[in-house]
């Protein structure tokens, strides 16, 4: 194939690598060396994880965890556009500003639907096993080129702006990957099996409805306990969805996953463990009761959990 998933990873790695260089030289960041190192190592894992033996990737992961875990990643200064500058630019481009942003999903969908089977000189244009991901990478590049032409910006500006956003996300950018990693370890240690066995005791084995019910409610409850649907997903999916709903009843994984994750989000709305979404805003908005946001969200979350259970059952059934 002409554009492979690895080339997309290399593109993301280059962005991260270039922005890490700015971090190293950012005198206003009190931890510029460790912060820079964090992004540099992350960039290396993005670009080269395929060629480096897994054991050494594992060690690199431990290093970035240590840097992030002990407060080595800080934000710096970015020479951001002033608010007058942004207002002036906005006045010039107005709603055209939304165009490049809209191009990302449009090109992605167009790429998946239109270029899926395209071959040039007998080779697939887009990696057939990862069409969506590769199309997304391509869309990022297309939108970037259009955006640069429209705003008449240089590549240096883009790198600086990428760095601003990457550093704003900080180590949290790596967290989903870490949670997925934890899911793998949990799985190989048999946590999924424990859940699976517990569920087997409770639900009638040949009932699709109760399997769906156990999976959705399990996602919501486990998310409430862990504070994060990403942490709950591998355990619950390996424990209930894979063996029962997908394996035994043969339901398509895409449907189960999308709705199951949403069942988890219903849990996120109901737990103080998801502090960023439920406790921090309460403080920010001067709410007297720090659980007030959760109490406001509760009815919607419960009703929606019911909707998700019914929806998944119907989708699986028909």
């Amino acid at each position: 194939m002409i554009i492979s998933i690895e080339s997309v990873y290399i593109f993301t790695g280059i962005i991260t690598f270039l922005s890490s260089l700015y971090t190293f030289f950012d005198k206003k960041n009190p931890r510029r060396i460790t912060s820079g190192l964090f992004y540099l190592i992350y960039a290396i894992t993005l670009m080269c994880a395929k060629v480096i033996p897994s054991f050494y990737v594992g060690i690199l992961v431990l290093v970035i965890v240590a840097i992030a875990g002990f407060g080595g990643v800080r934000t710096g200064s970015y020479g951001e556009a002033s608010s007058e500058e942004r207002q002036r630019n906005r006045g010039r481009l107005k709603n055209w500003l939304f165009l490049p942003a809209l191009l990302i999903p449009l090109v992605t969908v167009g790429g998946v639907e239109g270029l899926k089977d395209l071959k040039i000189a007998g080779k697939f244009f887009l990696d057939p096993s990862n069409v969506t991901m590769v199309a997304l990478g391509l869309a990022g590049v297309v939108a970037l080129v259009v955006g640069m032409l429209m705003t008449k910006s240089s590549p240096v500006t883009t790198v600086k702006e990428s760095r601003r956003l990457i550093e704003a996300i900080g180590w949290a950018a790596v967290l989903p990957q870490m949670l997925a990693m934890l899911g793998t370890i949990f799985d190989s240690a048999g946590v999924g099996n424990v859940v699976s066995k517990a569920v087997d005791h409770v639900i009638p084995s040949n009932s699709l409805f109760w399997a769906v019910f156990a999976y959705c409610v399990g996602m919501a409850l486990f998310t409430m306990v862990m504070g994060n649907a990403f942490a709950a997903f591998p355990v619950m999916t390996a424990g209930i969805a894979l063996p029962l709903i997908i394996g035994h009843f043969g339901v398509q994984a895409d449907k189960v996953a999308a709705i199951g994750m949403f069942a988890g989000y219903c849990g996120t709305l109901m737990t103080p463990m998801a502090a960023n979404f439920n406790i921090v805003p309460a403080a920010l908005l001067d709410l007297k009761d720090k659980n007030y946001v959760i109490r406001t969200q509760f009815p919607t979350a419960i009703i929606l959990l019911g909707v998700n259970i019914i929806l998944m059952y119907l989708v699986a059934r028909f």
Partner: protein
Amino acid sequence: MVLIGVLVVIVGFVLRLNPMLVVTVAGLVTGLIAHESLYSILTQFGQAFETNRYMAIFIATLPVIGLLERHGLREQAEHLVSKIKAATAGRILTIYLLVREIAAALGITSIGGPAQMVRPLVVPMAEGAIEATYGEVPEDVSQKVRGHAAAVDNIGLFFGEDIFIAVGAVLFMKGFFDQNHVHSEPIRMGLWAIPTAAAVFVIHTIRLYLLDKSIKRRMEQTPAQSVGTQEVAKQ
């Protein structure tokens, strides 16, 4: 025994330790309890990290988003929202819910958030609407509106973003299924997120409609109390 890893995660989150550290320690502890060697655990870490590079693909969209933000993307969105002249708090929140959901579905999660949009823009607009209709907003109504504004922000973000594949959750699921050798197609997962996203919009819009009703009841029940004292004080 293997559930000790789960316990580590819970305790870690309760103590507000750095999540990266908590997750890694939980992984190490779980692996060791399952009698795996350190070498094998680290190899699994590395493998999982490699497979799950999917989740980093959103980085490919950051350069253009950053560029647009520099050129006033957020200001333009605020400008659009501020042009809304819906008469009630509930309707303003409904429109914000819609904007937040659609923006998130397009991968633009930076529009919104309690610090960027809710506190400076959405809450003043909603409270302003109540004030224009009934006069000064009493404390309990203000708290209620604020709670709802924060909720709308969360709900719009959560249930909008899975529609677009550049976002963590969909990439996360893709990574998980790949590891388990189950075929999945991210764009289809996004598609199957649409019914729930539509359902939550309907459910929450009804609740916001009821919010308007309850504000109306509350404000008409004690019509001139807070406004009255204010006016007396002025006179």
